[in-house]
């Protein structure tokens, strides 16, 4: 079982660790303020952060459309007009998709409650759904809101909401599933990836489960979930050792009774927030409580974030930043504005994590899979751009998301209206004259860790060679150097 962290053990490095993992990090001042809350109030803030919905109002495109009416209108058009209208719709979609990504990245970056956004990012990777198949910005946004609403709530309720979520109905073909031809896609993935994990069900369970999810439809008049009883198979099913005329919700309830479900979710959460390959005894203990408390997420997260294990050497600075974490946290620590959406989209694509476009239903593998020779060099070059050293050579294949996981060709994009950090603001004058003090300050800002003398020595050398009081150009390159390191990839 977990050992709770004692309040007196709480200090600046631990506060920085919690802010990095439960949110997207912060500036030195933000870390200090977070530390001053103390352990209990800091964790409380993570679990019950302020509501940011007035800060982020519903975007204009976040409205359902009457597909039936649109289709009927199109039918009446001359073929050429219809084609033109279809092209306009596609173009608008691509623009809206880009807005959607930027909207969420902005929320992660600027929200008063970044903790809920981080949790939502976890659930998005868990119930991984891609706009590349769904092709509907509103539905993707709506799913994101559903995940946000349940982020710290009840896993069972979230699972049931997701089973009816129109984007999911498209993504895993549930809307195609009929009584006489059940589609197995959702039934398989709900067990393999959303709840139990492979090995905890049989092919027979997949086929029987698929029958229970027949009759789920999307109403073309307002894109809402609709249940079509005549397409539902209400016959007797044998599922995970039980039998009855199960509905989809019954099947999910049976899944939630399985001990494997709580273990699967707990392990995934632990790996996302703390570290990989946790001790099975730790997972089992948390999973038992999770199942016994009816899958309430908030108490589970409270136990994780208050545990000594979460703040141990196995956890602190052992995680590779995800591309989204890298981009959002870099904006926060350098206190820059956001780059143009196309620049960020391209970077995230190159780095392997475009929100709303996971590579497949398994989501992102994370961990070491983020890093290859090409993505590591790209991170270093993204740092060059972030500090304001000049444009990133990027490819803009086709606008929008059409080929986010399959990049094509393009030309360099003009990125001149990005300014980089304000050095007056992020590096106080009093630390600039002493290279050691300057590097110590920057290490806290960038790494929240002093690093080893061996690691910092080249930076101190560079600062000395350009000092005393290095100018903006030298500081810019110094920041770039410090970010062009294995250490900057860790959090």
């Amino acid at each position, binding site marked *: 079982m977990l050992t709770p962290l004692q309040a007196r053990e709480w200090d600046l490095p631990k506060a920085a660790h919690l802010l990095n993992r439960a949110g997207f990090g912060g500036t030195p001042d933000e870390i200090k303020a977070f530390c001053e809350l103390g352990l209990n109030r800091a964790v409380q803030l993570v679990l019950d952060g302020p509501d940011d919905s007035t800060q982020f109002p519903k975007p204009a495109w976040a409205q359902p459309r009457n597909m039936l009416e649109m289709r009927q209108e199109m039918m009446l058009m001359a073929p050429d007009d219809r084609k033109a209208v279809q092209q306009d719709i596609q173009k608008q979609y691509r623009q809206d998709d880009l807005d959607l990504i930027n909207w969420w990245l902005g929320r992660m970056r600027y929200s008063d409650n970044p903790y809920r956004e981080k949790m939502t990012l976890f659930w998005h990777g868990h119930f991984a759904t891609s706009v590349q198949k769904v092709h509907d910005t509103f539905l993707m946004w709506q799913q994101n809101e559903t995940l946000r609403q349940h982020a710290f709530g009840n896993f069972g309720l979230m699972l049931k909401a997701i089973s009816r979520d129109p984007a999911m109905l498209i993504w895993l073909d549930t809307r195609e599933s009929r009584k006489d031809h059940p589609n197995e*896609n959702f039934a398989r993935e709900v067990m393999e990836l959303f709840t139990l994990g492979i090995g905890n069900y049989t092919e027979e369970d997949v086929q029987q489960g698929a029958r229970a999810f027949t009759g789920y439809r999307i109403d073309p008049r307002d894109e809402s979930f609709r249940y079509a009883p005549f397409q539902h198979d209400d016959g007797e099913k044998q599922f995970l050792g039980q039998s009855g005329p199960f509905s989809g919700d019954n099947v999910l309830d049976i899944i939630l009774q399985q001990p494997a479900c709580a273990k699967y979710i707990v392990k995934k959460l632990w790996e996302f927030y703390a570290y990989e390959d946790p001790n099975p005894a730790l997972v089992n203990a948390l999973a038992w409580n999770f199942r016994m408390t009816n899958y309430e997420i908030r108490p589970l997260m409270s136990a994780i974030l208050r545990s000594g294990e979460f703040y141990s050497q196995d956890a602190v600075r052992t995680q590779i930043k995800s591309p989204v974490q890298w981009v959002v946290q870099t904006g926060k620590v350098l206190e820059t504005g956001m780059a143009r959406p196309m620049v960020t989209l391209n970077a995230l694509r190159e780095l*392997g994590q475009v929100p709303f476009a996971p590579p497949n239903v*398994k989501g992102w593998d994370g961990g070491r899979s983020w890093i290859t*020779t090409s993505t590591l060099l790209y991170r270093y*070059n993204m740092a060059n751009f972030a500090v304001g050293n000049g444009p990133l050579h990027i490819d803009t294949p086709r606008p929008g998301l059409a080929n986010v*996981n399959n990049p*094509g060709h393009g030309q360099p994009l003009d990125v001149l209206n990005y300014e980089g950090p304000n050095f007056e603001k992020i590096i106080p004058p009093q630390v600039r004259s002493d290279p050691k003090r300057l590097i110590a300050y920057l290490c806290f800002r960038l790494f929240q860790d002093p690093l080893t003398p061996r690691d910092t020595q080249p930076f101190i050398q560079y600062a000395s060679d350009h000092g005393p009081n290095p100018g903006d150009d030298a500081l810019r390159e110094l920041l770039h150097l410090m970010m*062009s390191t294995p250490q900057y990839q*860790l959090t």
Partner: protein
Amino acid sequence: MSDSDHIIEPHTSTLHTRREFLRTSMLGAAVSLSLPVFLQKTFFTLDAMAADSAVQTATGKDGPILIVLQLAGGNDGMNTVIPYADDAYYQARPVIGIAKDSVIKLNDYAGLNPKLAGLKGLYDEGNLSVLQGVGYPNPNRSHFRSTEIWQTASDADITVPYGWLGRYFDSCCQGADPTVGVAIGNQVPQSFASATPTGVSFSRPEQYRWLNGDKSGASEQIYREMNEPEMDMRTLDENDGGSIGSLAGPSAAPGGHRESTLEFLQRTALDAQVSSDKVLAIARKFPASVSYPRTALADSLNLVGRMIAGGLATRVYYVSQGGYDTHTNQVATHTRLMGELNDALVAFAQDMKKQGNFGRVMLMTFSEFGRRVTQNASNGTDHGAAAPMFIMGGGVKAGLFGQYPSLTALNAGDLAYNVDFRSVYATILDRWLRAPSREVLGRQFPLLNLV
């Protein structure tokens, strides 16, 4: 023999191995002993071609090359190699079946998708073999698990940590030169996973380098120091891997040294730095010799062609084409994919012939599974089992291998395999790459008469 017996455990950290390689190769010796670090870039650039002498002693300058092409998502084998003479095919696929008269016949039973005319040309000239009914016992229908089985060449009921190509690298190349395995794109496939990690990835050579804002070179020097940890001779000893490992990360996994996350990052940074110099130099000197179509797959093969022309010391290239998971309205999607596959392979074959390297290359396609015999309610197909593979190259024995699986005597609703994919791997390892397949695959699989 248990499955773990053949896994080669590293004796020292890979970071150490890699530094050792740099030090002992002509290139690396010059770098670490005599040249100021800021001159390295120039040196690397000038020397990239001559680097053959150092690097290719390990791999053989004229050695065979394998290109693995993954058709990701589960290619519908029955609409790729079509059993056009079987009524059961048209009964099972009334909407998505390919009309008999448009099939490109290979024999009186099976033929190719109409989009694969270029492959038929290669088949006729003796440079393509078509393997029918390839799969494995107890097939798994999960994309992820079945991909893992193909990538690691494991039995379906166990998982193994390393990939089949990674074990080949361990067995033959000792993890010395990271460019022995190259994946085009931003991901390294699971098949490259090895005890002494090897393999680099890139997609655009001109961007595969470190940019900076300091024209004096001082910044570049520090960057190289930071990302080539402990390159100087005084600190090169057996223990430095351990001292790095102690800085961070969970303790080593039971049963051997596991790189810490920081060590993993440091090693990747070193691999990136060394390979980027070579790749960029080759890319600048060797444009494509033929014109390729403008698709992602053709781009990838074009890049492979340029690297082969430039003599990058690579034994295995890995490329992929996605989009094969055709659950709904599959005909349009699958037809497009077949066309892109055909056109890219034809261009690559022409490129290799023009370079005079066609006899040195073998390209193998695979997909994690085929699809169900019967179309589904959405005019698509669900996950299935056995499927065909293509092997292309100047050195292959052309022809149609294996039996087309029966469309009526099914295994749990799917085609039953008659060639184990590991027999294909074994043949490629033993007869093409000249590596001991028994050691790499853990047991001896029957060889096929492909090479």
